[in-house]
């Protein structure tokens, strides 16, 4: 991206990108939560979210994205790793082997009968790591000149 000033103002792309961004993000979150029961999960959800972010990055530029979404993606990676490690470790304190997951049914307001599962927390860790990693890579390369 040697050409610093863009000669064309991509109004159509930018407007569309914002709308599509939200659609993809919502879809990705759905994919993430559905993961335990139907195709989806942390990897796919994470990749989907990051592809939405990449879209924004292409439509605008990395500086704009940084001001709109001031996220340190390396911190995100670390958080994800910690969550995954924490959910794998918790079972040790209950005298179970490493990575034993637990689940139970809960009655939640508005949502009704729902199964809560520690595997979701583990998957959340994966989700965050995938977003963090993809975005770190893309951002650092994008900023490198």
């Amino acid at each position, binding site marked *: 991206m040697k050409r610093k000033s863009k000669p064309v103002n991509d109004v159509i792309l930018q407007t569309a990108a914002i709308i599509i961004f939200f659609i993809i993000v919502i879809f990705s979150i759905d994919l993430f939560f559905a993961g*335990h*029961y139907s195709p989806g*999960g*942390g990897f796919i959800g994470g990749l989907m979210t990051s592809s939405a972010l990449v879209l924004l990055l*292409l439509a605008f530029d990395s500086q704009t994205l940084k001001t709109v979404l001031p996220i340190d993606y*390396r911190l995100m990676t670390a958080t994800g790793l910690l969550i995954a490690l924490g959910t794998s470790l918790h079972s040790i304190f209950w005298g179970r082997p490493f990575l034993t*997951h637990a689940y139970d049914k809960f009655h939640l307001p508005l949502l009704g009968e729902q199964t809560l599962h520690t*595997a979701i927390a583990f998957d959340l860790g994966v989700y965050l790591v995938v977003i963090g990693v993809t975005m770190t890579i893309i951002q650092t390369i994008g900023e490198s000149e």
Partner: protein
Amino acid sequence: MSVLHLAILLPLLAAPFIPLFFWGLKRIHTGWFVLIVPVLLFTYFAGYMPTTSAGEVVTKTVSWMPSLGVEFTAYVDGLSLLFALLITGIGALVVLYSIYYLDKDKESLGHFYVYLLMFMGAMLGVVLSDNMIVMYMFWELTSISSFLLIGYWYEKERSRYGAQKSMLLTVFGGLAMLGGIILLESMVGSYSIREMVANQAVIAESPLFLVAMVLILLGAFTKSAQFPFHIWLPDAMEAPTPVSAYLHSATMVKAGLYLVARMSPVFQESPVWLWTIASVGMFTMFWGSFNAVKQTDLKGILAFSTVSQLGLIMSLLGLGAAALHYEGLDENIYMVATIAAIFHLINHATFKGSLFMMVGIIDHETGTRDVRKLGGLMTVMPISFTVAVIGSLSMAGLPPFNGFLSKEMFLKATTKVASMDFFALDSIGLILPIVAFIGSVFTFIYSLLIFTRTFMGKAKFELLPKTPHEAPVGMLISPVILAILVVGFGLFPNVLSHSLIQPAVEAIYPSLVAGGEEVEVHISFWHGLTPELMMTIGVVLLGTLLFWQIGRWMGIYNRIPHRLTLNGMYDGSLVWSNKAAYRFKDNYMTGFIRSYLIYIFVFLSGMMLFTMAWLDLFNFSFENLAEIAPYEYVLGAVVVLAALAILFMRSRLPSIILLGVVGYGVALFFVFFGAPDLALTQLVIETVSVALFLLVFYHMPDISKKEVRMRFKIGNAMIAILVGATVTMLSFMALSNKSLTSISEYYKENVYELAAGKNMVNVVLVDFRGFDTLFEIVVLSLASLGIYTMIKFRTTRRTKGEGAHEAQKQTRQ
């Protein structure tokens, strides 16, 4: 984990704290803190004496790697206890001595004592482990700590040379021993030494009996510096003198003797065992003493004398095997060899320890160990002189010192050889007493040399770097204690016989004492005019004569050219192997990554095709194959054509697009295969990576259009086709040989009951095989960190683009 285990590991556990003492408490010599460890351990192990002398053994087991048969079993019997006491007892004296020998302000004592404690722990582990793998681990640890201690003054070139030499030789032996251990395990099915002894008959019948024995003996011979592996020991004398006294005379070099004694019950019925050990030991004894005479360095004399004495004990352990060939314990005169071996082992530790410390004192007080410069120190260093005389005369085998008694027993054992009527001992075996006699004569000569050259004769103080005076009291404590022991054991040898020697000997002959009998050990001064007494007198007479005329025959040492000596061969082989390795390396390490890849690819294909041909796996039979829909043919054709087209692309953009086509095609295949998760992932990944490729390739040059040679292309194509065909064959083979059912049945059945999920792939990822995923995200994070550092942290800052390169080129010109 029992107290016994903690005792073994105590030195290793204490070691990390030593540097703290060294840095934190500069005013007190670190050695005082270290001293606590061996003293404590010595008293602890001394508490086992009543147990072992009653013929009992103590076994404590800690499970380590049960699935591999590796248990940390601590095993205390007479033999191991004797060694444990030697290690801790001499260890305590050596540490005490080192406090005065090493200056706390000049030396890095933190390192020194860590290595020393590491050695102590390792050595205890060797002698107290029943499991041979554990023993092997400790065994190698002693080699490593010895390496570190020899190289302690690493700025000296000789130290590094000596350290490397000892490491190469002892580790070579250690590896051979590991091979032997594994062979023994394959025969018996256990790494436990006790199991091996119990199943001795099984081992004896194995066709690999001799191989295992030779491998084990290689380990023992290298460690105990037996000919021709003795060459490392003289060079090991570059270590600080307390280390030489401790490792290279009293303990570590005796690990080989321990091993031979320990393995005796397993092997000793074989004539090869007796002959190999007896003859190697006897020749080492002669060779060591012969070479000791020509040394000019005091420590050199002691080093060769240690080699010689180790050979003596080794040969006794070999001869001791003869006892098994006689029934009963009463009147079993052949057992005298083993008793003498154990007795001399103790004696050697005492007199050689004192001599080493005495040499250290001389070095410390005069600044040299060269006998050509020393002389006449008797008047200024009377206590050191007394210690030296006691140690030397004991080593020479003169009464009333303990060396006399064990030397007599040694001569007695060798003369008995002639009356043995098996293994051809009564004919060829006669050479053993003759060699023993000649070796003893040289031993007598170098023993005299040690104290006459240094303490008697003309004083040449002007040649010495320092003005000599008597050593400080603290430095004298340890050698004096040892000298007292030399005299004490000489006058009252039977103090040891019941408490230490007898249990140790019984441990070597478990089959003879199986019926609850006891080995009677009684050592006495006067046996009458026996052959061995005559031999001693002969040694003294001939030795005195040769010593008197020493100038006339010293010339024989210069007859052997350096190239033909063992040291010459060792040095030559090092140089040669270095050169050969470089030459070999330069041949295949071309620096082109392409060559390396070709090695990998060709080797992979070769191995695969060879194995498949070998196992006759080319009979493909395809059953229960899935159907192909017409649109799948189309998709397959697209993927193949896109992949092939990449090969002919000469610019980057079409290449990336074609790669994307392949990726999306593969994703579609995943859809057809019933893998929705994969398809989704592949689609998104493909999108993101195409974006990534575009981003990066934007900054890179186009693929060069330079003409590439046809030969280069054809060669690459050949290898490519070969690998491609191999992979297809591999896939065919896997399809036609489905011998195992998939473990996935478990996942399918339990996905809802155990994990409360319905998407099996996701449940496998986060639950059943969560460990994989955990590591995967770690790898991903590492990759992103790597990318981040590569871009953000640069060693050289360049302003912008290619202009910077131009500018740099110009400045270089």
